[in-house]
């Protein structure tokens, strides 16, 4: 079954090093659509990432930095990138070797379609 986000997710998952990508509701942390490799706990990842993104956005707003455009988390074993608009967040789970620059451009472009 396809959704309005299927093409976007298929494009993101093709990047070298990307192990999963999802469109998640920012408010409820629920997955709207996803493309995940086996072994990724999508529900937990979606809920926790949406919460993190929401709090980062609130922190940025409280500090007077304006809207959060792109959010990246680096860990020893991988990276998590998130970008959101209109209560939807694109979340990408990737290996450390992923080309974050390219991913970032594509995610920010994809946000335009959320407007």
């Amino acid at each position: 079954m396809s959704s309005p986000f299927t093409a976007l997710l298929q494009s993101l998952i093709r990047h070298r090093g990307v192990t999963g990508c999802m469109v998640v509701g920012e408010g409820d942390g629920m997955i709207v659509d996803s493309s995940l490799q086996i072994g990724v706990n999508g529900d937990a990842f979606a809920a926790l990432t949406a919460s993190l993104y929401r709090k980062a956005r609130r922190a940025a707003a409280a500090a007077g930095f304006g809207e959060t455009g792109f959010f990246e988390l680096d860990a020893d074993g991988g990276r998590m990138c998130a970008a959101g608009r209109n209560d939807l967040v694109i979340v990408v789970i990737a290996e450390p070797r992923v080309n974050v620059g390219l991913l970032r451009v594509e995610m920010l472009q994809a946000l335009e379609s959320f407007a």
Partner: protein
Amino acid sequence: MKLSVAENWVEAPLKQFVDEARVQLAVLLNPSGQVLGQFGFASSVDVMTACALAAATTASSGELGRLVDGRPFAGLHYAGKVRQIFLGQVPMGAGTLILLTVFDEESSLGLVQVFFAELCVALAGVVQPDAPTTPALAEDFERELNRNLSVMFGRS
């Protein structure tokens, strides 16, 4: 906010759930409506009311699920303007427990569901399968209910 329990084995799992899911209220009860532990309630009357309503809602939604889907619904979520309610069943051996929790924008349905799943695993790990599911006999119900509320709210 204080967490209080009538049964010691629920304390650690319930505390972990409350801390991690960032909920405002939580009450764990058995299907007959007897409270086992609670967080965030100010009075025993509120707990008693919440437990009675949660037990009744679970029974109703269970029957509705059987009618619609051939099996009881496992969880129920209601989103209000500011606060939301999640009502879930915790499988325990042959029976179940019920968790009623209330949360606001500090948490989310996704987070509550994730940590609810962890609560189910934690409770299954610390309890004898049939220990908490023993139904209260009608003649013992009020006494047991009052005992549990007294333990948690410190009144005789």
